[in-house]
């Protein structure tokens, strides 16, 4: 069975005893060597359902990451090139802003604004921050420089008009449509939009990783898990191994599915570009997971807090207080078990 990865999802099932441990199978089939670093983080869960350590409960066979999709036609018309540093990125946005175009499409009622926020927080962060925030290795200071820096930047981007201030009620679909129709030259979102853009977008487009960031929102894809009540657990394990075989992985590489264990290069240049971005992130172990993962129900908290930041009802401090108190309460609940 396929299931969502993370503390709040697969971790939850593991803690509830609904799925079985795959540690032995991982050793037997060699999954533990195929999937390393931040890919394996999402596969292992402790008895409290916290990811990163403990038994193997799920096995991913593809990955995903968040980057910047851009409209090449609009870039060419404006005489702009792909930014490689955060400063360049801001210059590109200023250039669009000067022409009266809102540079970034996003959506505040669903995940996009939260991922953009996390992207900006990560621009200030290192791996140890991710370990604290996502894996509870140490306490996160919500009033510290990483959180304040990232959140302040989002606030500035909103007040400078890089992001519209009326995105609060928009859904991810609204963001995608606005980008596809060429109303906004860029959107910061995940590789899951790739296929949709290939079929729907008329203008020529491309994708680059968030400029300047070493860490990126992203992770292994959803997990194969085996339910406790499964009648054919062994067969399930064999099937999981097939999805990690070279054949299957190479097919994924050709189709833009972001394989976790393939060295094949796609014939389609756009797919090759996407896979290359992903491999470069994997090479520096740059997957930083998603902002809503740490505690159950955090997704709604992030959405609500950032809506307040976007429409100007909350300042940076109030937003971080809101995020921090829910995080602390959720963490306490989780560790209590």
């Amino acid at each position, binding site marked *: 069975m396929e299931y969502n990865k993370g503390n*709040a999802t697969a971790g*939850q*099932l593991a*803690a*509830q*005893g*609904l799925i079985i441990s795959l540690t032995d199978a991982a050793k037997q089939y060699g999954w533990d060597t195929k999937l390393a670093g931040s890919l394996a983080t999402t596969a292992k869960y402790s008895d409290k359902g916290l990811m990163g350590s403990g038994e193997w409960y799920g096995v991913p066979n593809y990955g995903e990451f968040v980057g910047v999709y851009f409209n090449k036609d609009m870039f060419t018309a404006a005489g702009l090139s792909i930014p490689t540093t955060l400063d360049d990125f801001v210059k590109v946005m200023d250039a669009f802003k000067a022409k009266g175009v809102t540079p970034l499409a996003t959506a*505040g*009622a669903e995940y996009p604004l939260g991922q953009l926020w996390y992207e900006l927080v990560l621009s200030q962060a290192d791996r140890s921050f991710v370990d604290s925030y996502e894996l509870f290795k140490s306490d996160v200071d919500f009033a510290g420089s990483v959180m304040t820096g990232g959140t302040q930047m989002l606030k500035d981007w909103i007040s400078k008009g890089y992001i*519209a*201030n*009326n*995105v*609060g*009620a*928009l*859904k991810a679909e*609204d963001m995608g*449509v*606005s980008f596809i129709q060429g109303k906004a030259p860029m959107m910061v979102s995940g590789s899951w939009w790739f296929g949709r853009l290939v079929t729907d977008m008329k203008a020529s487009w491309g994708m680059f990783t968030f400029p300047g960031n070493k860490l990126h929102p992203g992770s292994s894809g959803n997990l194969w898990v085996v339910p*406790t009540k499964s009648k054919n657990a062994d067969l399930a394990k064999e099937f999981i191994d097939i999805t990690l075989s070279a054949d299957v992985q190479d097919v994924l590489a050709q189709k833009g599915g972001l394989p976790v264990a393939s060295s094949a290069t796609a014939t389609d240049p756009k797919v090759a570009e996407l896979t290359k971005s992903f491999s470069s992130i994997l090479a520096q172990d740059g997957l930083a997971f998603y902002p809503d993962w740490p505690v*159950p*129900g955090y*997704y*709604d908290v992030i*959405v*609500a*807090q950032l*809506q*307040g930041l*976007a*429409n100007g*009802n*909350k300042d940076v401090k109030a937003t971080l207080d809101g995020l921090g108190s829910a995080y602390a309460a*959720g963490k306490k*609940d989780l560790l209590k078990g």
Partner: protein
Amino acid sequence: MAATTRHRRATWVGYLPYLLPGLIAFAVVIGFPLATNVYYSLFRWKGGLAKMNWYGLGNYTDLLSDDAFWVSFRNSIAMVVAMVVVPTLIGLVLAAVLFDYLGRRFGTRVAAVLRATYYLPQILPVAVAGVVWNWILNAQTGAINVILSSLGVVNPPDWLGNPSLAMPSVMLVLIWVQIGYPVVIFMAALQRVDPDLYEAAELDGADWINRFRAITLPQIKPETFVVTLTCTVAALKVFAPVYVLTRGGPEGSTLVPSYYSFLNFFDKSKVGYGAAVSTVLTVVIILVAVVILTFQTRSERREREGR
């Protein structure tokens, strides 16, 4: 005397088998889930096969200090306004106008067509209506704001994204959804009213307003009670419109009890806590229903006594 009692008991017993299916259905569909829900609400539990930790009334005392819980019930009042008060008032007037004025001047056909149009939103699945209203209210590309900006409005309102506007917007959609129901019930009720009453009043020189007050309102009182009761219950447990329009946002401003319960059950996996929220909701609904039913019986009794 003894013989008649035995006789009576026998008849009563004879009816029992006919009550059984209903009793069984009640036990399976309502009684058992309700009891299970109350039972769950006494535990801290993540659901599934996880361990259930006895928490006593802890979930309920936690509720007392939970702001989101209180906000959700405060929002219920707004829901009652949007789903009961406004639609019933407008429905009364609309039904009377349709039946009494339009029906008579332009024929019952016209009135029937209009009645059907008012009822249309009720037939539409909530999910579809929600998607349509999302299009209309979208801050950047929605119909309303596109029209407003073409009229020269620089910063058109963010209907669902502004915490102070989101609730009124949701209420407006609910009024639109709800209005057909009282109109249809009240129009049916009006057909029951003896036309002689109106004729006599008209001969006595009563105008439309007076006839509406003196004849229409008292005559369709029973239906008004039914509409109030069913709509109030629906308003207290409203879920789908909030789910499709705002997901309780922005910033929790449109949270309602059933959505809050759902959030706890599924998003946060706090099954016991979610169960406590729905138990409280059930109790509130039963209390409100009892109050309305008491009013209804009292009013009926007064009528029978000719007061």
